[in-house]
C-alpha cells in the first residue's frame, strides 16, 4: 500500500451560490491509507466540499484533481425511501453491481448487520440504515471512501463500534477515507488529519493540534475540549 499516493486533491476552491460565498479558498488532500475528517458547524460548507470531492459539483474557481483510476464509495447523509417503493436491504445492496448473496452477507457481517438482509428498507432504524449504507459503499471495493455523518442516529455503543470499524477499513481495503462530522469527541480519536471548516479552513492538522487551536476553540467553545478529554480517557481505559 503506497501511503503517499494522493487520491484526491482540491486546491484553492471557491464556490458561490446566489452571491453567497459557500466556500472560500479551501484546499484538501486525501492520501491512500489516511483518514481525513471534516468538521464545522451547520452551514459551514461541509456538504458542498464533499460534493466537489465526489465530482457532483464543479467549483467556480480553483482546481480539483481526482485520480481517474480510483473507485469511490460514498455514504450519503440522508436516504429516505418512499413507502411506495418496495425495497429490501438485499435488493438495495445489489444496486452497487454486486449480486451474489454470499458477498452481500459477508459485507453485512463486516458492518454488523447480517440480520437485516431480507428486511424492507423502510423498516430499519436510523442506525441500521447507516450500516447498510456503509455496506453498499464497501461493496464497490473503494479506493476512496467518503462518509457523510457516518454515525448519525447510531446509539453510543454503536458509535464506538463504527469508528473502530472505520479505522480498520483503511487497512482492510487499503483506501483513503474522507469523513464529515459535526460530532467532535469521537471523531478526534479515529482520525489522522482534521480540517475545521467554516466557509474557509479555520485550522487544520493532527487532531491533538487542532483541538488546542484558538480558531477551533472559538468555533466550538470550551465544551469541545472537555468532551475530547472524556473520550480520550475512555479510549485509554479500554485499550490499555
Amino acid at each position: 500500500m503506497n501511503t503517499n499516493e494522493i487520491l484526491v486533491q482540491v486546491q484553492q476552491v471557491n464556490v458561490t451560490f446566489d452571491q453567497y460565498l459557500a466556500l472560500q479558498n479551501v484546499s484538501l488532500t486525501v492520501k491512500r491509507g489516511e483518514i481525513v475528517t471534516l468538521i464545522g458547524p451547520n452551514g459551514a460548507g461541509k456538504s458542498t466540499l464533499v460534493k466537489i470531492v465526489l465530482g457532483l459539483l464543479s467549483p467556480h474557481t480553483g482546481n480539483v484533481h481526482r485520480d481517474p483510476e480510483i473507485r469511490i464509495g460514498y455514504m450519503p447523509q440522508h436516504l429516505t425511501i418512499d413507502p411506495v417503493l418496495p425495497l429490501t436491504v438485499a435488493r438495495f445492496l445489489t444496486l452497487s453491481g454486486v449480486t451474489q448473496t454470499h458477498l452481500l452477507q459477508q459485507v453485512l457481517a463486516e458492518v454488523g448487520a447480517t440480520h437485516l438482509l431480507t428486511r424492507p428498507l423502510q423498516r430499519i432504524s436510523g442506525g441500521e440504515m447507516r450500516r447498510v449504507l456503509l455496506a453498499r459503499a464497501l461493496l464497490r471495493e473503494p479506493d476512496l471512501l467518503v462518509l457523510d455523518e457516518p454515525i448519525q442516529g447510531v446509539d453510543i455503543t454503536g458509535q464506538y463500534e463504527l469508528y473502530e470499524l472505520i479505522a480498520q477499513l483503511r487497512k482492510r481495503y487499503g483506501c483513503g477515507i474522507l469523513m464529515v462530522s459535526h460530532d467532535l469527541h469521537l471523531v478526534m480519536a479515529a482520525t489522522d488529519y482534521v480540517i475545521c471548516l467554516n466557509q474557509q479552513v479555520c485550522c487544520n492538522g493532527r487532531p491533538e493540534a487542532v483541538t488546542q487551536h484558538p480558531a477551533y476553540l472559538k468555533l466550538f467553545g470550551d465544551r469541545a475540549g472537555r468532551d475530547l478529554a472524556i473520550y480520550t480517557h475512555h479510549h485509554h481505559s479500554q485499550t490499555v
Partner: protein
Amino acid sequence: MDNFLWRALFGGIGVALLTGPLGCFIIWRRMAYFGDTLAHSALLGIALGFLLHVNLTVSTIIVSLVIAVLLVFLQQQKQKHLATDTLLGILAHSTLSLGLVTLAFLPGLRIDLSAYLFGDLLTVTSQDLYWIYGGGSLTLLCLLFIWPDLLSMTIHEELAQVEGVNITRTRLLFMLLVALMVAIAMKIVGILLITSMMIIPPATARSFSRTPEQMAILASIIGCLAVILGLGMSWYWDTPTGPSIVVTATLLFMLTLLRTYRMN
C-alpha cells in the same frame, strides 16, 4: 365472440402490460402530473395530425416527445422562478386547449372528440395492434436496458451519480419512454384517463410486493385483469369501455386497501 372484441381485448392487454412497469416508476418518482401533462398534449398531436394529414399515432408520438424534451430542458434550468408543477400545469392545459382550438379551425372535420378524450377500445384496428405491440415491446426493451440505472437514481440520485450512472441521459430516456407510452395507450383509455392506467395498477400492486421487480410485474397483471373485467362490464351493461376499465381498476385497488387495513 366478435373480431372487434378480440382486438379490443388484445389491445387493452398490450397497453396494460406496458403501463405496469412504466407506471411504477411514475409513482416511485412522483411524476403523475408529468404523465398527465404528456397525455393532455397528445390532443395537440392529434389536431396536428389532422391538419398536416399524417398518421395520428406518428403525430402524437412526435408532439409527446417534443413536450418531454421541453420538460427535461425546463427542469435543468438553474434559475427557476416557477415550481415544476406550475410549469406542468401551464403546459398541460395550454396544449390541450391549443389542440381543441386547432381542431375547430379545420373545416368540414367531424370527429368524435370523446373517443380521443376517453378512449374507444372497441374501434381498435389491426394497425393499432401493430403499434401497441411493436411500439410497446420496443418501449419495454428500452426500459429493461435502463432499469438498474433508473432504479438506482430513483432511490438516491447523488449516490447513483457517484457510482457512474449518467443521470441526465437516463432521465431523458425515461421521459421519452413515457411519451411513447402515452401515444400508444391513448387510443385505448383516452387522453384524460391514461394517467389512471399508469397509477392505479402499480398502487394496487404495492402491498403485494417486496421488490421493485415484483411490483412492476404484478402491476402489469393487475392492469390486464382490469382490462378484461372492464371490457366485460362494458359488453354486458353497454358502458363506455375506457371509463369501465378505470372503474374496475379502482375497484381492485379498493379491495387491496381493505386487505391492507385488515392487516394493520
